[in-house]
Every structure is written in structure tokens, then in C-alpha cells.
């Protein structure tokens, strides 16, 4: 219901790459032009700021490591939103599911001090999936069985997750004698190895960055996502429900079952953010480590057209924004981290909500060109 019909044009009139590449690029350009205006308003030179943003995100190896570390989070949440989308569901609860996923990974790491890291990593991945999925299960069940609107319930579950995590970190899991609400640091033996360490085992030296092995897991999830959706019966049923629930019922496919399956997978994928953040980088459970990744995932899925390759590219874009934008404040005293949210918001607005903004003009342009070409061949 929430997926707006794409309103496909006449077949053959407009080449396919227009919809997949040209329109998103145009939308992106519009978003960046408006961001430039905001930068002008606060009194800086937009070209300088945006080029610094790019070079701070991609200009040198260490920066690329940071960018890919952010990209990892966005791939997970992008996939999470996308799988729900394929079933016709809007999962706004990625934030809460990722938060709980981090709790799962953290509890495993806290409990298994002294174990070899591969075992801990495996169990932490399982635990984060389990916690994330469990947090998505309740809204899913409510949607499937009681018809509660999943958008509202998942928003509410984000708030409930935040409250529960604050309570856990302040009253229960807090490191004894500590003032700040966080758990004790995990034993270094159970940390998920960073990419520079892992590559070091093979004699490849790269600069240190928070990029860790969960990046590979994110890429693997993209592949698994594709296989599941396109090559398995479950994926087929899930997409059928998303396309046409009534047709699915006639085909003997249970919408309720698929809604729950889609949300469980969605929650598990969002939960993996916890592996990257908690096991890979923070090495302790801290407050608000998610910082909006669940919401960015919505934009990533939309821009990536819910396809794994598109999601990787869109996640990379948002990774660049997060890393480059974060660095801007060091160079420009008038700019702080929030500028990134402005650009993100504009990108989501143009690429997500106004995705068809330039469609009529572009299609008209192509038709006119196609028309003149046809007329010329007709004449000749």
C-alpha cells in the first residue's frame, strides 16, 4: 500500500537506464544544489565545502577505511528496509532493532571472555540477529494478526528500545564504579579484528581504521539477500505478498506468515549493525551507538531501488556523507556534524519522496528525440 506505483511509461519509449541511473543522479544533483544553498546561507563557499567533503571521505586510504566502516552499517540497515519493502512493509524500526542487536552482540562478548574470537564472532552474529529479529517480531505479529499499522508500531518500538537500553546501561550493565552509562570494555581477545589487522595476517599493510571484518559479512549478506529473494521459494512467496496480497492468498500463500518472516529477516539484518559497532569498533555497549543508521537505511533502500547492488552504491554514498561531513567541522568552524543530516534529509527528500520530480520532463525529452528520429527515418 505504501509502495507508490512506479507508473511505467510506454514500453520502449524511454530506455531503462533513465529510471535506474539518470533520474537518481538528477535527484542527487538537486539535493546537492540545495545543500549548497544552505552552505551559502551559513556563509561558506559550497564548492570548497563539498570538495573538501569528498576528499576527506575518499582522498586517502585511511579516509576510505572510515567511509567503508560507515558504509557497512548502511548496507545492513538498507538491506533490512529493502527486505521488508519487498513484502510491502515499511520498517521504520531499524534504529531500535540495531540497538537491540548491539545488546545481543555485547552480551555474548561480555559473557565469553577468554574464548577465541572466531567463536565469539559467530555467536555474536547469531545473538545480534536473534535480538534484532525478536524486536521486529512483535510489530510484525501485531501487523499480521491484529492489523496494527507497522509504521507506527515500529516507531514506538524505537522509543521503547531506547528507554530499555538506557535503563540497562544506567542501572544494570554499567561498569561498576563508572559514571558514564556503558558496560566494561570487552576482553581484547574477543574483539572482531579490524581490516588492517586481518589483512596484516596475509602480509598486506593498510592504514588503521575502524573498518573491520563485518564489512565482508555485509557484502555476504547482500549476496544471500539476492539468492533468498530471487532463487528460493520463500523469497518468491515473500515478493508475491508484497506485490499483491490478494493474489498471494489465492495462490495459497499466507500473507501473515510472510509478513512475520520478512520482518524477522529485516530485524536480524538491522541487528548486524551491532556486530560492526559494538564488537568491531566500540568494544563495549554504549548509549545511542546507532545514531540514526536505521533511518538512513530507509534512504539507502529507496535509492538502491531495493536491489543489493543499488544498496551497496547508495550505502557508499551515505558513507561518504557521514565520513566527509564529519571531518568538515575540523576545517570550518561554522560547520558541525549536523550539516550531514541536512544533506541526508535533502537526498532522502529528492531521491525518495520526489523520485519522479524530473520524470515527466526527461521522458518528454526522450520521446521528442525518439519522435524526431522516427520521423527522420520515415522521411528517409
Amino acid at each position: 500500500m505504501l509502495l507508490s506505483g512506479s507508473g511505467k511509461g510506454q514500453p520502449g519509449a524511454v530506455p531503462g537506464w533513465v529510471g535506474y541511473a539518470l533520474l537518481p543522479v538528477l535527484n542527487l544533483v538537486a539535493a546537492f544544489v540545495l545543500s549548497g544553498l544552505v552552505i551559502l546561507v551559513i556563509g561558506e563557499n559550497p564548492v570548497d565545502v563539498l570538495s573538501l567533503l569528498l576528499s576527506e571521505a575518499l582522498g586517502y586510504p585511511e579516509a576510505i577505511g572510515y567511509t567503508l566502516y560507515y558504509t557497512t552499517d548502511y548496507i545492513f540497515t538498507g538491506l533490512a528496509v529493502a527486505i521488508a519493502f519487498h513484502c510491502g512493509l515499511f520498517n521504520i524500526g531499524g534504529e531500535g532493532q540495531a540497538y537491540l542487536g548491539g545488546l545481543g552482540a555485547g552480551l555474548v562478548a561480555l559473557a565469553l571472555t577468554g574464548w577465541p574470537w572466531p567463536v565469539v564472532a559467530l555467536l555474536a552474529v547469531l545473538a545480534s540477529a536473534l535480538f534484532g529479529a525478536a524486536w521486529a517480531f512483535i510489530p510484525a505479529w501485531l501487523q499480521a494478526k491484529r492489523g496494527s499499522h507497522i509504521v507506527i508500531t515500529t516507531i514506538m518500538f524505537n522509543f521503547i528500545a531506547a528507554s530499555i537500553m538506557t535503563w540497562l546501561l544506567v542501572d544494570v550493565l554499567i561498569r561498576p564504579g563508572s559514571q558514564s552509562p556503558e558496560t566494561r570494555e570487552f576482553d581484547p581477545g574477543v574483539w572482531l579484528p579490524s581490516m588492517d589487522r586481518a589483512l596484516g595476517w596475509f602480509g598486506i599493510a593498510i592504514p588503521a581504521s575502524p573498518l573491520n571484518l563485518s564489512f565482508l559479512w555485509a557484502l555476504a549478506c547482500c549476496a544471500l539477500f539476492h539468492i533468498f529473494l530471487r532463487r528460493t521459494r520463500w523469497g518468491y512467496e515473500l515478493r508475491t505478498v508484497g506485490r499483491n496480497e490478494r493474489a498471494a492468498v489465492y495462490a495459497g500463500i499466507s500473507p501473515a506468515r510472510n509478513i512475520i518472516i520478512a520482518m524477522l529477516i529485516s530485524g536480524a539484518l538491522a541487528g548486524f549493525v551491532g556486530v560492526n559497532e559494538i564488537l568491531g569498533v566500540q568494544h563495549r555497549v554504549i548509549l545511542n551507538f546507532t545514531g540514526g543508521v536505521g533511518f538512513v537505511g530507509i534512504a539507502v533502500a529507496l535509492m538502491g531501488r531495493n536491489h543489493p547492488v543499488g544498496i551497496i552504491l547508495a550505502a557508499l554514498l551515505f558513507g561518504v556523507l557521514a565520513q566527509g561531513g564529519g571531518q568538515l567541522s575540523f576545517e570550518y568552524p561554522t560547520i558541525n556534524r549536523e550539516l550531514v543530516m541536512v544533506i541526508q534529509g535533502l537526498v532522502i527528500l529528492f531521491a525518495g519522496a520526489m523520485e519522479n520530480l524530473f520524470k515527466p520532463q526527461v521522458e518528454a525529452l526522450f520521446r521528442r528525440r525518439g519522435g524526431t528520429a522516427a520521423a527522420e527515418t520515415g522521411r528517409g
Partner: protein
Amino acid sequence: MEDALLLALQLLGATIRVATPLVLAAFAGMYCERAGVVDIGLEGKMLAGAFFSAAVASTTLNPWLGLLAGIAAGMALAMVHGFACITHNGNQVVSGMAINILVAGLAPTLAYAWFQQGGQTPLLPNQARLPAVELPGVEALSGVPFLGPVYRELFNGNNVLIWVTLVLVIATQWVLYRTRFGLRLRAVGENPAAVDTAGLSVARLRYQALLVTGVLTGMAGSYLSTGHGAGFVRDMTAGKGYLALAALIFGKWRPGPTLFACLLFAFTDAVQVRLQGVVLPGIGVIPVQFIQMLPYVLTVLLLAGFVGKAIAPKASGIPYVKER
């Protein structure tokens, strides 16, 4: 006895003060959802209203100009929302989320650039804040038992926007059910095709509804930063927009029950402040966080149908595409 009455009155007074922005935002949502446009961007519009009110009030030292600026900001964002989801049939939830994220970044960014105070506006002096309304006869009535304290604690010294909100609540009830505009608004949210057939413009009606939404969210923001508070601080809406949305559903998209839901949420908040650190007999201290999440849990329970089924306006969230 006197103390208990005073405590109850103070709780109720706090409830009214906390409820006001919720009521404004929830009623803002009521106008657009009744017209068939879902607005998750209430939060962002409120935040924008709060920032621009405080920014203008702080520069001009005139709270009324601030209020106007807040309303203008709310309306501008409502028009962006309308442009995305009425004119371009965009996804309403995505548009709302985009507005929330945009404003959450924009407000502190502008505040930082304009005031250089770490993403907030300077503390507003009293003359730049929306005034409280002092009622006559407080002294004269103070000797009267019950009536005197009630008059003093509940009615006197309320911010002017609280009274405006009260008027708006009554007006909304009247507009929605007793005017032609209200009838059309409700119709366009239930069956836009029928309204279209009757020769009325669906888009026009929805834009009108969104304008009202913009005005009310702007006022809600203004109340937060220049009425209740004294300046804009980062994230000062703190989820109130979402809570208002929940109250709207809780209230089944009707003025009376929605008002009640807002008061209920506000009451849990007022109680929560009082309950912090208090030892309850037999239970002990309830962690603050559990009391804070009460409204959200209540909402989920309601949505689960345990309190009665909430039926949204039928066309809510669906872009209207004219048949060609």
C-alpha cells in the same frame, strides 16, 4: 488534605503545560490525516517552528514576530510535504521522515552559524517570550476553599498559547463537523474519488489541510521555545511529534478523544517527574525509563486492538491519482 489538593492541582497544571504542544501537534496531524495525507513530519515541523520562533524572537525581542516566523516555517515545510506527496504522488512516510531528518540537521546548523552558541539560540529575555495571562481576582478568591487554589493553580498564569490552544480545540470540533470545509476535508480523506467527481479539487483541499497543519505545528514549536521554554535547544521536540501522532491514533482521529489522549500522555509525563526516586510500597523504585516509555507502550497496546479498534481515514497515506 490541603496538601493533597495542592499536589493534585500542581500535577494537573503540569499536565496542561506539557500537553499543549502535544495537542497542537496532534490536532495539526488531524487536519491532514482527515484529508488523506499522513504526516510523520510533525516532529520536524515543530522543531523548525521552535527554532525560527526563538531565532526571530531573540533578534527582534518581539515574541509575536517569533510566533509568526514559527508559523511560517511550519507552513513552508507543510508545502514541501504537499509538493512531494500531493503534486508528485511521492511516498508520504518517506517525505515526512526526510523533513524530520532535514530539520534535525538544519536547525542546529543555522543556530550555530547565526548565534555561535553550540547549536542553540541565546537564552531569551522575558520580553522576548510569549507572555503568561494573569487573570483578575486571584487575591480575592485565594481565601475561598477549593475554588481559590483551583483558580490560582490551574487557570491563572497560563501561557497565552495555552488559551489559544483551548480555543483551537473547540474550533476544530466545530470546523470538522459543522462546516462545509470540514465536511469536504473528511470526505477527501475517506473517498477522494467521490470528492473529485463532485467537482472539487482533491489537491486543493489537501493543500489547505496541510496549511492548517503547518500553522498548528509552527505554534506548537513556538510554544516550546518561546512560551514554555526560553530559547531553542537542539532536539527540543524530543519525539513529541511522534507522540502526537500516537495520540491522534489513540484518539481515533477525533477531536475529543485525541485531546484526552494528549492529556493522558502529558499526565504520565507529569507523574513521571514526580515519581523519580520515590519509593512505592511493595514495588520499590520504578526506573524512570519505564515510566517514560509508558505512552509508547500504551499506544502499541491500543494498536493491538485491546482498547478498541482504531480505524484510520480510508484514503490516508494513499496518493490520489486522477483517472485518465
